[in-house]
């Protein structure tokens, strides 16, 4: 039995990030060696070249980027670190790509605790492991106190797209079923409850997770998927509006089929915020010809992730009202599901 170096290795007690950690000199190097390499290390990253050199099979690749600025950085169900990995992995996966490589760009505020950085970095490494991707290139900047909120992380990602896969938000076809892979609004509500100052609390757990395994299985069994998207910022409402608009089709949802956890529903009532406008970080919306919808659902339900059992067919694509999403209420009336206007603020009225 050999003893392996564990990530995280070193223990920083009360040490904090200093400007010098970002200045490209001795402390920058120390940070890379003591924090990043033990967690992310791989042959591409270890050379510490300015760029990773990667062999990627011929054909199409997918490329995406996202910056993560979530506050608080530790919340029930995740950290900014695994969110940064899953978020970018998911943006690749929903394009039908197999995620392979990530970059990691950190902006750190001087004074940021090194122990927190280690926790974040190690959660990134875990998430990357689980998603089957490697973090192969990176960058760290340190800014003065008050010029960033602790830590921001950009991840960009590359994946390969198998031949014959053609998934895009412009591809909705009338008759497609719209499927969502589980409950809605968990991430955003978990983060809101974790914020200090709001007098509300909950046991809601963020759904932050990588969708690559789930999606690759869906595509193996149902290659005829037309469009996929992860309903993150702006929630399901933003995602469906974007799909409808990009494809110039209408979408009709059935209100009674929308899966929402009871405590998320409770929080929504409390805060006066529609759970359909709230971010998810481990859910996928799939548009697929109606006849394949049940197959997709079965793949989802078979996967063991929390709320897999709540995956549901929630609506369908129509020719009418292109660019618009309509909800059929429980009473049989209709209302428009608008693109959300802006940030979700708790309201009293």
């Amino acid at each position, binding site marked *: 039995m050999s003893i392996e170096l564990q990530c995280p290795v070193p223990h920083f007690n009360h040490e904090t990030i200093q400007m010098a950690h970002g200045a490209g000199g001795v402390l920058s190097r120390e940070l890379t060696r003591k924090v990043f390499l033990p967690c992310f290390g791989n042959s591409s990253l270890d050379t510490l070249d300015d760029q990773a050199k990667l062999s990627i099979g011929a054909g199409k690749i997918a490329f995406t980027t996202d910056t993560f600025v979530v506050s608080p950085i530790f919340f029930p169900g995740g950290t900014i670190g695994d969110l940064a990995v899953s978020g970018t992995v998911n943006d690749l996966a929903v394009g039908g790509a197999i995620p392979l490589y990530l970059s990691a760009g950190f902006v750190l505020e001087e004074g940021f605790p090194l122990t927190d950085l280690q926790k974040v970095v190690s959660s990134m490494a875990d998430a990357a492991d689980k998603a089957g991707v490697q973090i192969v290139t990176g960058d760290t900047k340190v800014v003065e106190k008050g010029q960033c909120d602790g830590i921001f992380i950009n991840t960009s990602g590359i994946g390969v797209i198998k031949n014959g896969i053609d998934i895009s938000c412009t591809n909705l076809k009338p008759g497609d079923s719209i499927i969502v892979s589980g409950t809605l609004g968990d991430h955003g509500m978990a983060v809101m409850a974790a914020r200090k100052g709001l007098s*509300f609390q909950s046991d809601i757990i963020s759904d932050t997770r990588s969708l690559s395994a789930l999606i690759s299985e869906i595509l193996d069994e149902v290659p005829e998927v037309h469009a996929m998207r992860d309903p993150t910022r702006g929630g399901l409402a933003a995602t469906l509006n974007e799909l409808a608009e990009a494809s110039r089709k209408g979408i009709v949802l059935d209100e009674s089929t929308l899966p929402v956890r*009871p405590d*998320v*529903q409770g929080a929504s009532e409390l805060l*006066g915020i529609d759970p359909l406008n709230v971010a998810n970080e481990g859910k996928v919306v799939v548009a697929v010809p109606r006849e394949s919808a049940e197959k997709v659902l079965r793949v989802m339900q078979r996967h063991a992730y929390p709320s897999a059992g709540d995956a549901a067919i929630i609506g369908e694509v129509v020719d009418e009202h292109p660019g618009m999403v309509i909800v059929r209420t429980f009473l049989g009336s209709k209302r428009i599901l608008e693109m959300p206007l802006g940030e979700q603020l708790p309201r*009293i*009225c």
Partner: protein
Amino acid sequence: MCLAIPGKVVAISDENGLKMGTVDVNGSLIKACLEYVPEIRIGQYTIVHAGFALKIIDEQEAAESLRLWDELLRK
């Protein structure tokens, strides 16, 4: 106006001399001032608006009124 939500009081405390409580709304908890429902007990339902419990919900009245409606409608 006046988004007000029914929930169950699950804890009662004193904060800065005010009677405060925790109200459970479907598993999400909200802090509410209970000064206006001084007689409230843990387990009772109340209606919370902007951080204040405004009234204890009359469970019996609610059940009775629903029963009456359902009866009326069945006719």
